[in-house]
């Protein structure tokens, strides 16, 4: 039985009484670690991550599912965390930008490729771009540039580092194919060098 505690009403209007709002405990598995937090039903996943868990790597830009900046992986699928309620993620696995590098700090090939190809300027869209690209590359391990253009169309970058992003995604795809083909050690070591 999950515990439900009542908090006093949270009115949306000064005059109309609003039924009491509840907070509920949920369990999120974020980057492999289990967190139990108490959220309101209306709490979005991005707010749960940023505010409740203090994980601010995921950015909030539009709050309307229109820009992709808040992209995280939910059970491996890319979702825009600003239009998913945290309670919908109870018991599910969330992967964010903070959990992408290997535990020893070795960056993901995408992270290293973003530096190489100047795929970011202000960096605000970058966590969303990278998380989106992780899912995209899993489904398209050998993408053409046109497939990347279309497959990454949901992630806006106002600095318009798009060309660098496309090249980085294509390059990372190549690196990832090479590292699954071989042991991967050489590639990852090179990536670690890129990031240092």
């Amino acid at each position, binding site marked *: 039985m999950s515990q439900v505690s009542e*908090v*006093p009403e*949270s*009115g*949306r*209007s*000064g*005059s109309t009484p609003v039924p009491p709002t509840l907070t509920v405990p949920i369990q999120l598995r974020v980057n492999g670690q289990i967190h139990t937090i108490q959220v*309101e039903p*209306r*709490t979005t996943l991005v*707010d749960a991550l*940023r*505010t409740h868990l*203090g*994980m*601010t*790597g995921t950015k*909030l*830009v*539009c*709050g*309307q599912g*229109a*820009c992709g*900046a808040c992209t995280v992986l939910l059970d491996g699928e890319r979702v825009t965390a600003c239009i998913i309620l945290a309670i919908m993620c109870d018991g599910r696995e969330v992967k*964010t*930008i903070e959990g992408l*590098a290997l535990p020893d700090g070795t*960056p993901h090939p995408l*992270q290293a490729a*973003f*530096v*190489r190809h*100047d795929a*970011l*300027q*202000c*960096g*605000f*869209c*970058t*966590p969303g771009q990278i998380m989106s690209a992780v899912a995209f590359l899993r489904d398209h391990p050998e993408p053409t540039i046109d497939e990347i*253009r*279309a497959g*990454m*169309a*949901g*992630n*806006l*970058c*106002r*600095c*318009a*580092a*798009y*060309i*660098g*992003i496309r090249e980085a995604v294509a390059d990372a795809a190549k690196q990832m194919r090479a590292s699954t083909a071989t042991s991967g050690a050489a590639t990852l070591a090179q990536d670690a060098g890129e*990031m240092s």
Partner: protein
Amino acid sequence: MPETISSSPASNFIGERRKRVEDVPMLVGAGQYTSDLRFSDMAELAIVRSPHPHARIVRVDTSAALKVPGVIAAFAARDLPEILKPFPGAPRSPEARFVTPTALAAEVVRYVGEAVAVVVAEDVYAARDGADAVVVEYAPLPPVIGVVQDATTPVLHAGWPSNLAQTVQIMTGAGADGLDGADVIIEETLTIGRLSAQPMEPRAAVAVYDQATRQLTVYFATQSVNMAQRSLCALLDLPADRVRVIVPNIGGAFGVKTRLYGEETIAACLAMRLGRPMRWVGDRHEEFTVTNQARAQVHHIRMGLDRAGHILAFVDHFQQDAGAYNITADGPVYNTAVSVHGPYHIPHLAMTGDIILTNSTPTGPYRGAGRPEAAYVMERMLDRAADRLGLDRAEIRQRNLIRPDEMPYDSGIRRQQIPIIFDTGDYPAGFAQVLGAIGYAEFRARQAAARARGVYLGIGVVNSLEMSGIGVSDSAILRVDPAGAVWVMAAVSQMGQGHPTTYAQIAAERLGVPFERIHVIEGDSATGTQGPGTFASRATVAAGTAIARAALQLRQRILAEAARQLDAPIDALDWRGEYITVRAAPVRRVAYGDVAASLGPAGIAVEASGDGNISFGYQGHGVIVAVDPDLLTVAIEQYVIVHDAGNIINPLIVDGQTIGAAVQGLGNVLFEEMRYDSAGLPQATALHRYVLPASIDTPEYTLIEQHFPARANAEGFRGVGEGGTITSLPAIAQAVEDALAPFGVRLNALPLTPQRLFEAVRAAQSQRESAGGMA
């Protein structure tokens, strides 16, 4: 030419395509932006905003908000008298009427989104619930929309005879009288629609007040850290030594984060009043309605030429929709007035820019800040002139371009006393490269072949100049500490331009130390460095040259001391990496950090001023588009940019800035429009109603560089952040019009959305039909 000194460093950092040092935190989710900052006991703010474009505030009742769980306090304007002063600022012309808002509106609201009250709560959800519960009673007033106004138009501000705030005038030669000698005079009205910059990071502010030390620290993403600090001091009545502004990472700014807004002041005031850290994080709706908008100009032009297509006179009376307050509106208007000239011979110029208030969000600088409008106007008029005179559109440009043998070329224009002189470059050669790379000579045959297949191709080829700097210089401080670390401080901020890397490259090159030893500190009012901030493509020019000069002076001081310690003349020394050695006897050496340590307990510091002089870099665009004749969508087939960035510090970053600016321009031309309806309500308040260019819209760009070091500063630097936007407006517009030439359309107004293209095609059709009917 750079200042020369003895033992000049052998390093080669300036010009190196170097990966950015600042990328890593942002790639792992550790980049700290304002909304990521958290302080213990921090409260959150939400702002109550006007839903009316123009209304009297009858009553603000915050009592219901106070009953919302989690709400701590709520304030209307009357409750915060200490900040109810108009924002600091001054008109640049004594005849101007100048009006700035207060942080909260007390009596009248003048645009949708103007702040009326603020709610403080334990968390954001509660703060927003509280804001929803605040009751504001308004008495609506008739809204003023658009710059076409007359004697019956309501006046926004008491005591003003009309909504005309200021008229900016620039004249050279005989001005409008220059038209008298023209063989042809072309008249046209051109419109550049209203835009919103839409940086990905919504504006935010965090204010922390330390009761014990009485120090106020305000964190926010400002492009102008020193101006922000001074304005906050003035608004809060605090001395300079009690207020510090720190700029965290900035998630895009593009000009709209130059001015101070109300929320920073409100957060600061409440942090002091309530004794808790305060955070306000805006949402996308606020980014659409509160943050400065831009462009919004209408031009009425008369251009006089001789029969051979030489421009004689350019006369342009234009109106700037300033929005409800002209807090920053004059900057773009001045820029437009002085930039229309561009890279051409214009013997007689008369620019008149009216700054007119309306009930809409204030407008101000956004990427290009008046220069894209200027380039659009000049280039489209050249298109019209070519068509009228039966000249090729490239040919008319070639006939008017300023030649390299005329450099430096004094345009005769003065921007607030500062002469506009084109310092160096070869514009005809640049344009020839544009024509060559885009395949201009072969294009008409290609176009005809495509049209035979039902594909509508069009070409655009244009020129512009990127004015970098505004004639004000900055200072920079360089310090070498006893461990040999080099601290570079400057009064600018960066929002993706790569200052931590480029400034380190400059310092490493001019000082001669390893790149890795350099740390760049900017965006902090406590550095003590001077300068107005990052805008107008000035950061590299003004702060970059200051860093270079400070580094050269520091090098000289350290070498002089090393010479003394090593008992050898300076020119007998080598400084490579960590050590300064006697060239003839390398065992005699000393670490530069040790030399610095011997000069003082904290090492040695030097402050120097840079060269703020304006420089002008050529930029030419060639573009081929394909317009879908049914959907009227535009696809970019080919895009060539030729640009002169002077002495380039980091080509990787320059490429990114140039292309990024061009893609923004592409969005500005094809997709983006902030529309207000006739009731004064903004029609684009979410990203699905204001289309930004995405990856799928972004073409590949061919970049070709010219290398004419600027003469306006010692390092030959030019700014590069805006040229791509400035030049793409006329380039794409020309190309789309060319593609649709079979339909007989003339495209005078931006943006060129499918809807507007549809209207233009239909208008041309009905014009033809009625002409046919009369025949």
